[in-house]
């Protein structure tokens, strides 16, 4: 097999794995919500307003 084609195929496989890994992480790995420490207080005023009156 042509050496250049062989290297290109290897690069293709590596890039494919990286892409699939990213897709898997995007859809299936639960985020730890570090940005707000898991706090869901933003929703509190909404809940209160919906139950308040």
């Amino acid at each position, binding site marked *: 097999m042509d050496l250049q084609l062989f290297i290109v195929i290897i690069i293709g496989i590596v890039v494919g794995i990286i892409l699939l890994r990213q897709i898997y992480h995007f859809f299936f790995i639960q*985020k730890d*919500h570090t940005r707000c420490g898991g706090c869901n*207080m933003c929703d509190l005023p909404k809940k209160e307003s919906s139950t308040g009156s």
Partner: protein
Amino acid sequence: MRLSELKTGHKAYITKVNGSGPFRKRILEMGFVRGEEVRSILNAPLKDPIKYEIMEYEVSLRRSEAVMVEISVLESDAHVRTDDDGMLTEEELSQNGYHPAYSHNGNNNGFHNPEKNIRVAMIGNPNAGKTSIFNLASGAHEHVGNYSGVTVNSKEGTLTHNGYTFTLTDLPGTYSLSAYTPEELFVRKHILEERPDVIINVVSASALERNLYLTTELIDLEVPVVIALNMYDELEQSGRTFDHRTFSELINTPMVPTVGKRGEGVPQLLEEVIAVYRQKEYKYVQIPYGRVPEKSIGIMMRELAETTAALWKIPLRYISIKLLEGDKEVERQIRQLPEQEKIMARRDKERTYMEKLLREDPESAFTNARYGFIAGGLKETLSEKTQFADSTKLIDTLVTHKYLGFPLFFVFLWVMFEATFRLGGYPMAAIDWMVEQLGNLVRGNMAEGPLKDLVVDGIIGGVGGVIVFLPNIVILYLFIAFMEDSGYMARAAFIMDKVMHRIGLHGKSFIPLIMGFGCNVPAIMATRTIESRSSRMITMFIVPFMSCSARLPVYILFVSAFFPSSGSLILLGLYAFGILIAALTARLFRDTLFKEDETPFVMELPPYRMPTLKSVFTHMWDRSRQYLQKMGGPILIGSIIIWFLGYFPHNKEREAAFDGQITQAEMQHAAGSINEEELEVKISEIDHNRNTEHQVNSYIGRIGHFMEPVMRPLGFDWKISVSLLSGMAAKEIVISTMGVLYTGDSDDQQSLQERLQSESYADGTPVFTPLVIAGFLLFVLIYFPCIATIVAIKEESHSWGWALFSVFYSTGLAWLVAFLVFQVGSLLM
């Protein structure tokens, strides 16, 4: 008399704050308390909002909100007589559970930890300089700026000092620990649930009175605190002296002067943290609230002592105060107790008792008492100002002037784009030249084959096409950093409030919008500082119309290729069109999806501060690093994927047919029927057809042709359609895709601009006509910027539904606008 009636330049004293709910609570906490002096400074260009000075800082209020505040020009009117005839006797106070200062073992409260690892939380008012100290201490590069609400989430950093390991948590700025805004609740939750070993309360020394209000809440919470008197240099420059040692003794909390931007006082601050951490016993003072409130607090404490609330590891005095204040979160927790009915009945009775005797609601009574305590302490320790820095007032008279305010703002934006486009053009040309040389080097020295094509067309063509715009991005961020660090950002929000009001939002929404010029993701996160959920949601949806820095390379590519003489104006026009679309969307959403009333506009206007060279360069370096990292990550991966989709499948028969045509032409040349020049033209034509045929039949060509019927009415060919499709991942990939797809026919590496200029259909008509370019640029401007932005919308709205709505709305609108531009333009031209 109402505050809104106070003439510019005049002063008065607050007698009463009317209204209810979050607005009232917020302005009370910001110092609009009975007896406080307030001065009207100036009106925004459209007469609204108004800038006031109170407690030595500046704040803006709308006229409709200033009406709620009653004032009197006579100071004596502000002090009403109540039935609270002073303090209880010491014996009475003691019976009620009040002790001016008492100590207890830290372990009982769960805050003491004998290990050498100290967990420290940094708490303070917005724009007090917490993140500056955090960055200096932990070596982090978190974003800082001279406006409120830069930090919208907690960030952790570690450092070691004198054998101790510090885990620092930088929390969002908050004026108090009430339960009205998400950041207040978050900070309180962090203190009570995470239980940091020591709290660093960062206090702005230039606005001590207001900043110390939060300190009084921490005192009530009985947590180990060290106060960082930040920006102490500003206090000294104003000619004041502050006997912080005496004040520190008064509140039994160590105080350390610091200058965050220069790192002065940070080692001493850490030493104090260690000293407090090592204390076996903490001595707490208690804020004296006056005879009537103290009596009610005592009664509530006795009531709570018999319940499981006593096991919460939260001081009963604090719970009692919060219950009497009407704190919703504490009420919610109390309602979960079996004895809730009895407690709440007692609480209601005590609130009525307080209101009757004090002639004001308990919320105001506690706020007034806290400010009274601070004022009392500062009276003895803080001297009057002798030096008045007029620079802020002078700059404000210009940038918020009724006639000059708006023109100056747009001149600033124009200078920003002019510098980004023109100044950035020189280093851009240099990088472009280097990319070309690299491409030619590989072209000339590598054997023909797929790897060469991948390196030249895929990697150098794709990544190289994007990397040339690095200087433009750096210059854009330089201006944004200046805007954020100088304090002009808050002024922009101030002058824009009236305009924002007309589209159903308020000035505070303008800050995330300006931030969106840099990157939409942090801009969407910055919407957390907006109190109203409906305003927050609308702002979140319109942020993507703010043209982010990732879209800038696309504009510059086309503008420099097709309209180089009017580049800045076209850029300004695109940004302005984005703002217009955002405004129309906001109005539409306010009238249909989010009809809820908007929130009041209460915003602190910080004094102007000259950004330090270090902070500006750090800002620029961080952005450049991020951009380069993107080159090595998503852009590289995207370019390789596009190249693969464009290179495969290879059809040997088709290739052989084109090779046959070339051989035939060469034979014609050998036979003398065509000359050398004609041979070259013929081979060039065959190569062009080979490329076109190959791309059309490649995987990406098939995807493009599948999309073409939808995009054809916009004048877009399949390559433009594919570029837009790949740009969904990130806007820079639009360029790298074009870099891969528009390979050109030249043997030399050409710039992408040249390749786009020479791109034509089979009949010779150019692909990129002015109408196609206009439609394409508007499409790039309007459709959603990247997947990261959509994820950010999902995170902030807590809904995939809203995130997908944003995708469909922006893409649909982009299609419609590009369609109108092309079709209407074609009819007219």
